[in-house]
């Protein structure tokens, strides 16, 4: 093959490869990149009820800073995020250790543990709505038969956030556990053998050896959960719609309602872009952390 023919073949191949990823890229740009730019534009405008738009600069953002409902939404989002994440990580690592030491996991057991997070969050919301009903639900019946006071659960402004966190934890802890289990299974057994020879206790082995080695996996699980938790929507929309009052009005729920219930498109765009910045900020921060704890 001559040199010219070789470069021609190379060019052709490069072109073919570009053509292969083109549909996915064009689709994503059309469906995402363009709408995001449009959202930025919307966020700089105000729309009257007759549909007339006017450029308002950063007014939507300064309104956001003065909006008590925004700060409340941010607080609810962060409280729900931290509570759910901590519960899911602690219980997930525990469950992963239990699964790890069980050695053989029959398919039926694995299917059981993936069932919560394979069902739609909407369904999880529906079923917990019935279980947690303040007057007729099974949860309060169990509390009462144990001699404990019943709870208002989702109907209580104080308990709604912990309750939603509990539902999400029920749904996603097995997911965290399976990720951590993958990390456990990839640890070199020689490390344990050395610890055993040194006579380290089980707890010490976990604290000094297993946990540090697992950190990258735990950070991975944290990133994957953070993305979902910071934009919490489905379970809340199905169970409380942000209530009672505004007690569970996360930023995502608030932005949705501003946009699609109050049709305040400019302000909703500013809210959604702010939430997006928070999500990506968290992902980037944890990604750096993952680099720092890698071994």
């Amino acid at each position, binding site marked *: 093959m001559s040199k010219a023919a070789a470069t021609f073949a190379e060019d*052709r*191949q490069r072109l073919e490869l570009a053509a*292969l*990823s083109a*549909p*996915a*890229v064009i*689709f*994503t740009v059309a*469906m*995402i990149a363009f*709408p*995001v730019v449009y*959202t930025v534009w*919307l966020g700089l405008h105000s729309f009257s009820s007759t549909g007339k738009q006017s450029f308002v600069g950063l007014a939507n953002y300064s309104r956001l800073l003065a909006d008590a409902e925004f700060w409340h939404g941010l607080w609810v989002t962060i409280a729900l995020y931290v509570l759910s994440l901590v519960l899911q990580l602690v219980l997930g690592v525990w469950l992963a250790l*239990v699964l790890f*030491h*069980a050695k053989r996991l029959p398919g039926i*057991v694995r*299917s059981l*543990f993936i069932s*919560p997070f*394979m*069902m*739609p969050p*909407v*369904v999880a919301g*529906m*079923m917990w*709505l*019935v*279980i947690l009903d303040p007057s*007729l639900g*099974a949860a309060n019946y169990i509390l009462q*038969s144990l001699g404990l006071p019943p709870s208002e659960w989702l109907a209580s402004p104080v308990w709604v956030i912990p309750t939603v966190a509990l539902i999400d934890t*029920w749904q996603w802890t*097995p*997911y965290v556990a*399976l*990720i951590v289990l*993958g990390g456990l*299974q990839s640890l070199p*057994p020689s490390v*344990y*053998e050395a610890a055993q020879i040194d006579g380290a206790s*089980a707890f010490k*082995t976990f604290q000094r050896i297993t946990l540090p080695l697992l950190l990258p996996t735990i950070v*991975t699980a944290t990133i*994957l959960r953070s*993305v979902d938790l*910071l934009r919490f*929507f489905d379970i809340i*929309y*199905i169970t409380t719609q942000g209530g009672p009052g505004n007690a569970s009005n996360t930023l*995502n729920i608030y932005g949705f309602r501003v*946009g*699609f219930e109050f049709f305040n498109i400019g302000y909703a765009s500013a809210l*959604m872009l702010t*939430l997006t910045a928070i999500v*990506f900020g968290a992902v980037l921060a944890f990604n750096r952390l993952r680099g720092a704890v890698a071994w």
Partner: protein
Amino acid sequence: MTDAPITDAWIRRLNLLQLVVAGIIVLTPTLWMVLSSLKPSFEVTAYPPTLIFAPTLENYAQLTKTTPFLSYAINSLIVTIGSTALGLLFGIPAAFAVSWTRISWPAILTLAARMAPGTLFLLPWYVMFRQVGMIGSYTALILSHAVITLPIVIWVLLPSFDGIPRSVFEAAQVDGCSVTRILWRIALPLVASGVAVASILAFVFSWNYFLFALVLSNGDSKTLIAAAFNFIGEGSTQWGALMAAATLIALPPLILAALVQRWLVSGLTLGAVKG
């Protein structure tokens, strides 16, 4: 794998006990949902709740009689299968090209789209689809759900394509095979199991997705998930039908997930964990 340091028999039993407790916590709410869906309507709201009852399918019958449940289900199937197919159509060649060239930005672009809150695109989509009169159309729903399925397909298939030895492709190139031909004739059959896992995960997450259909569907094109919201308003007297609806909506993803459970975890973490 060699034994971890803890080997004593009673610790093993303690571990098994913890496994059983975790299993019960995971299983009970789902079981309660299914049980409630099978209770006669006067018993579903009985307090204290009953465990022993004569099971009946009246809730399921009521659901199909009083709501267009079947047509919601058909809508869900159309949107889910359509968006999964679109995700595969765009995702398979893209994953192959990324794996071949090691130029990863197209894959990262689709993943970033998946990480942003859905409400971010929903506003402009709503405005745009309304302008062209596509609100409530299957096309709008399938396109929006393909945003969910595309990154799943790409990121599940990337490690599969990466796993094919380069020499296989080089041999084919020597024989005069074009890159596109290599993908469809040689690479794709080799990653068939990966395609199966990707399809099922894409199906499950498209089926489960709530937000887009909530806004972009209307009375005629409402998906099951978006319609679920309508079942709730009825109050506690309708608990039986509500739980019947919940059970039926959860069934397709649960059955599919059980089929591929062994390969699911590495697919779900987008390759972050090699299970």
